[in-house]
């Protein structure tokens, strides 16, 4: 457990959850490539954008750290699947607007339009990315509150097996 307050349940009233230190290799090198996380952010900015623009930067920072930790623990095969889906989405989405520039170079509004068209026509790669991002994003207390989720019960009893660390 690397989150400082991992022993506490998420507090829907908290303004900003503590920053996660993602799982890294011994020595501190990242397991997940920074390029992959950059692609996560490019899609997340558009996916969760509103009429007023992308979500707050702090929330996206939090999401990217969560995504890095998730993918680091998910194993090489899952990282490959998500990485491939992100690559395909990044490649195909601009073409939906007849643009050749990388997805990240498009405005957030155009990115959202491009991703929407891609989802409508070839949903599978978008679904793979979107499913992971949504699971993570809506665990942010503010994001959960914005969609009316009041949090499930999280208290626990003591039933650990003897000898556990």
């Amino acid at each position, binding site marked *: 457990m690397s989150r400082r307050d991992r022993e*506490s349940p998420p507090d829907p009233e908290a303004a900003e959850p503590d920053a996660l230190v993602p799982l890294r290799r011994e020595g501190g090198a990242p397991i997940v490539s920074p390029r992959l996380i950059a692609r996560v952010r490019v899609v997340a900015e558009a996916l969760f954008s509103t009429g007023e623009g992308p979500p707050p930067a702090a929330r996206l920072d939090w999401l990217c750290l969560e995504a890095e930790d*998730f993918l680091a623990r998910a194993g090489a095969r899952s990282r490959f699947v998500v990485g491939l889906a992100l690559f395909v989405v990044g490649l195909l989405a601009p073409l939906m607007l007849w643009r050749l520039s990388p997805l990240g170079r498009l405005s957030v509004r155009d990115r959202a339009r491009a991703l929407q068209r891609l989802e409508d026509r070839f949903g599978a790669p978008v679904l793979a990315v*979107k499913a992971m991002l949504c699971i993570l994003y*809506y665990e942010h207390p503010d994001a959960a509150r914005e969609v009316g989720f*009041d949090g*499930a019960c999280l208290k*626990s009893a003591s039933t650990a097996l003897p000898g556990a660390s």
Partner: protein
Amino acid sequence: MTLVEGKLHDGDLTIDADVVVVGSGAGGAVVAAELAEAGQSVVILEEGPYVSPERYGRMRPSENLRHLWRDAGLTFAIGLGDTPVINVMMGQCVGGSSVLTGGVCFRIPDSVMNEWVTEHGLTDINPKRMEPVFEEIERRIHVEEVPPEMRSRSTQHFLNGLTALGMDWAPMRRNTQGCNGCGRCNFGCPHGAKRSVDVTYLPRALAAGARLYSDCRVDRVVARSGRAAGVVGRLLGGPERKPRGKLGVRARRVVVAAGAYASPLLLMQSGVGRRSGQVGRNLTLHPGFRVMARFDDPVEGWKGALQSAYSDALEGDRITLTSLFIPPGALAGTLPGIGVAHQAVAQAIPHMAIFGGMIHDEGGGRVQTLFDRPYMTYRMAPKDRAAVPILMRRMAEAFFAGGAREVYLPVLGLGAVDADRLRSIDLEHVPASVLESGSQHPLGTCRMGVSPNGSVVDAFGQAWDLPELYVADGSILPTSLGVNPQLSIMSMALRIAWHLREKRLPAS
């Protein structure tokens, strides 16, 4: 005796035991407890980590996925032919998938057992013989009916629709005690109410002297003098859970209970089952499809038991309908829309209800390896594929009969569907490539039988071509069940354990 976490063990590890059990899930835990209580020296090896109920009870769903599920829940069966890609979710932790089920407990249906008797010659596995086995498991894990007051509004809306259409339904039974219906069973019960094997059978096994080692990957079953004599593998450690020290267990009997995905791989790596050619074949999944519906009034489907009712009204089409719910984030991820459109549908999450349908499949799946990397393929039988549009249409109709404003079918790119549009959609010709499907029930890859030509293990789980090697998990089921398999797996494992308890151990 206590749990030893392999990740904390330095160097190699060599152990002696009467019986080594590979896997600590619904099958392995039952065998381990029964044999340990019979006085045998038992070692349990689990590839996944140990995460205490206190810890997993506090985890958010995504944390649970990354710590307790194989591949963080991103394992897939590749669809062959007119078959969708199917997300197959399996536990990889002490307690296995039992930690991550909705707690649903069905006995093996009589019709299925009768088929095993008549089609597979398994005459001992019949309703009368299995009755005491079921009763024992149900007593040990406290199987009880979900009371009506614990039903979520999501489930109740769908049931109202079924009733309006004249379709039968019934309350489910689950292995719970003191459940308060917080609706997150799939991510580990936060207060120990779900009687998964990590809080039932494994403590029993340890109390009787069994030794449980987590973070231990078994690579091969060792044979000596023509019989199984132990296993070898590696201890896993470090941030990426990479192989570290060597693991060796010398045992007089080996029980493999690693599940329908990992057990056949271990047998293949050990050169077992070549005679039949059936190892890894006959994979069934119960392909599942979710239908969501938006209601005008708030549903807040996360309040109430995750799973509380089912319907077998479509049994003639080989479909079972089961209640469920998923976390809001997962729900949002399957709803259509990007940006502003996504925000609009996400705002409707508190108004969304969900119900699931699964197909009692014939099985055309396989677990195999390519360059030592395991993967699954699955080809739907034509009649299973034909059941998919029936499932979607009937579930949508039930939701509309229950008052839904619109439904979301598991078809990518389809968007919201109202009652008028449902009538005009040609669901029968939706290509598999746009179907969303998931499974939590891989079964059948080391199937049981009465002949070494068509099966991997005999009627008591012993491998045909390696004496003293037993398999005791969902992989031995000869066919799919059409219902959630937890209790069936535990019952088959208990039946094998009772047999082994009476069978003399070979000389060491």
